[in-house]
């Protein structure tokens, strides 16, 4: 069980006023809010042991290194990863994807094919388009059905022998739909194709075990999990990561440097050139602790309650259409009211102190698929309440009335 009013006290920003009313933050799919425990972890680092990691012999550096590596261990345990060296800290999901796409440049040829889906975030489309441009390989797209779900039959027929990779999100950031990721991975593997899962949206809402999923690569961002911005991680099976060239050259990623030849460091340092976001990585560890102290089972069931309540309430509004209204989804609702432009609804909601996202949500292909300029997206987290949803639904009604 979740004591939401007790939890809310951990989040200083939730007591903020916007336009003289209480902030109602329903843009959690863009970024989650940060609990005091995570904020304290950041300031504790700068106050007490700010120091560069893996380099110094002095006590501060040892402290910082240990704390930094503790997060790697926490990520390993939380995500069911076999080895800590398979975890690369990144600046976020997009960075993780770009490490792989740039690494594959010399390993993909013009005969090869890559698969993405129609519901991907632009971050999981554009890097692969760039890879195709450089290598002459072909990008194929799994279409989505009218209900927003992936067309798995089409996926099966796209999985031809030339397909080397499948790039797929676990959860759609726009529709909230949870994809049958295990089935997608197993089908790809039986075709000898590798799979990268974009976990940006899924990781915050339920626990996953990457070893059980048998996924080849997985990327996620800390800031969706109550952690700081500018931090994320890339998981890759060690043999695959070992076969990839480094992404950036610099300090930390080498074992021996002469002007004749430089030898690269072993995993994970090979991909962690330069001074990382040390405070951020440490705070990411605190964020995982925080979320686990609440419990992902609790988070999942509470958010489901919020989702069902909000969906039911919104559906009572005349002419309101929800996109991707299916059973298998996280607490994200994308909708439009009549022909009102989503930015009009969003602007009025903002005046009520309600933060939602409007527009294309970096998923233009979904908007083109449904032939709409965008949607209003409300995304709920475990610190949102039913009374906030009441106020939100009421504000949508008022906005719709104002717009006439």
């Amino acid at each position, binding site marked *: 069980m979740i004591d939401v009013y007790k939890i809310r006290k951990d989040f200083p920003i939730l007591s903020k006023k916007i336009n003289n009313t209480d902030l109602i933050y329903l843009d959690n799919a863009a970024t989650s809010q940060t609990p005091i425990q995570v904020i304290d972890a950041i300031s504790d680092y700068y106050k007490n042991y700010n120091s560069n990691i893996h380099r110094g012999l002095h006590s501060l550096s040892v402290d910082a290194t240990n704390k930094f590596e503790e997060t790697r261990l926490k990520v390993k345990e939380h995500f069911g990863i076999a080895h800590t060296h398979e975890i690369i800290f990144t600046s976020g999901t997009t960075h993780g994807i770009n490490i792989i796409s740039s690494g594959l440049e010399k390993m993909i040829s013009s005969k090869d094919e890559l698969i993405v889906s129609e519901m991907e975030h632009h971050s999981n489309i554009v890097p692969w388009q760039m890879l195709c441009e450089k290598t002459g390989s072909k990008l194929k797209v799994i279409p989505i059905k009218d209900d927003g779900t992936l067309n798995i039959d089409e996926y099966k027929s796209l999985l031809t022998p030339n397909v080397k990779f499948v790039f797929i999100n676990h959860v759609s950031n726009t529709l909230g739909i949870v994809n049958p990721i295990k089935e997608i991975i197993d089908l790809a593997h039986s075709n000898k194709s590798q799979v990268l899962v974009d976990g940006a949206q899924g990781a915050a809402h339920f626990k996953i075990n990457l070893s059980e999923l048998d996924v080849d690569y997985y990327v996620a961002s800390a800031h969706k999990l109550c952690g700081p911005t500018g931090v994320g991680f890339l998981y890759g099976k060690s043999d695959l990561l070992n076969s990839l060239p480094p992404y950036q050259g610099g300090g930390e990623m080498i074992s021996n440097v002469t002007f004749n030849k430089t030898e690269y460091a072993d995993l994970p340092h090979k991909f962690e050139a330069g001074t990382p976001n040390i405070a951020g990585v440490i705070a990411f560890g605190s964020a995982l602790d925080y979320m686990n102290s609440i419990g992902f089972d609790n988070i999942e069931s509470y958010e489901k309650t919020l989702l069902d309540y909000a969906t039911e309430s919104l559906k009572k509004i005349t002419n309101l259409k929800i996109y991707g209204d299916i059973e298998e989804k996280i607490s994200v609702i994308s909708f439009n009211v009549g022909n009102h432009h989503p930015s009009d609804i969003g602007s*009025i909601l903002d*005046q009520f102190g309600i933060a939602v996202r409007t*527009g294309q949500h970096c998923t233009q292909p979904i908007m083109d698929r449904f032939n709409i*300029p965008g949607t209003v997206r409300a995304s709920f987290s475990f610190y949102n309440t039913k009374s906030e949803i009441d106020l939100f639904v009421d504000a949508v009604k008022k906005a719709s009335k104002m*717009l006439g």
Partner: protein
Amino acid sequence: MESIQKKQDQIIEEFNFFQDWSEKYQYLIDLGKTLPEFDQNNKIDSNLIKGCQSKVWLNSSFNDNIIIFEADSDAIISKGIISLLVKVFSGHKPEEILEANIDFIEKIGLDSHLSQTRANGLLSMIKQIKIYAIAYQAKQ
């Protein structure tokens, strides 16, 4: 034709009557709805203003040293905002537009109700109006 400053002052006076944001928004929405029909043939990419979340088209014509603006948007609040701009700037000489001190947006408190994204969109609209004025001035 009243001067650009006079027209801005009238808008400021009108907005002074509004008690809160909802009245301002309602006014913009109503204004958006009454904006004259935009020629569909002018809804072309080259008339689109970059930097707006919704689509905003701005078209202009130049006759007898006077610029006539017409505009449209697929979002009604944007349409209301651009119709204020059309009201202020349309029917003026390029040099009048370029010399104008645009103060009404701040004075009607619209900027404080706009998100950064929206405020950038509004700046893009004004910039585009001035670009047209510069282009027509060069043509003279």
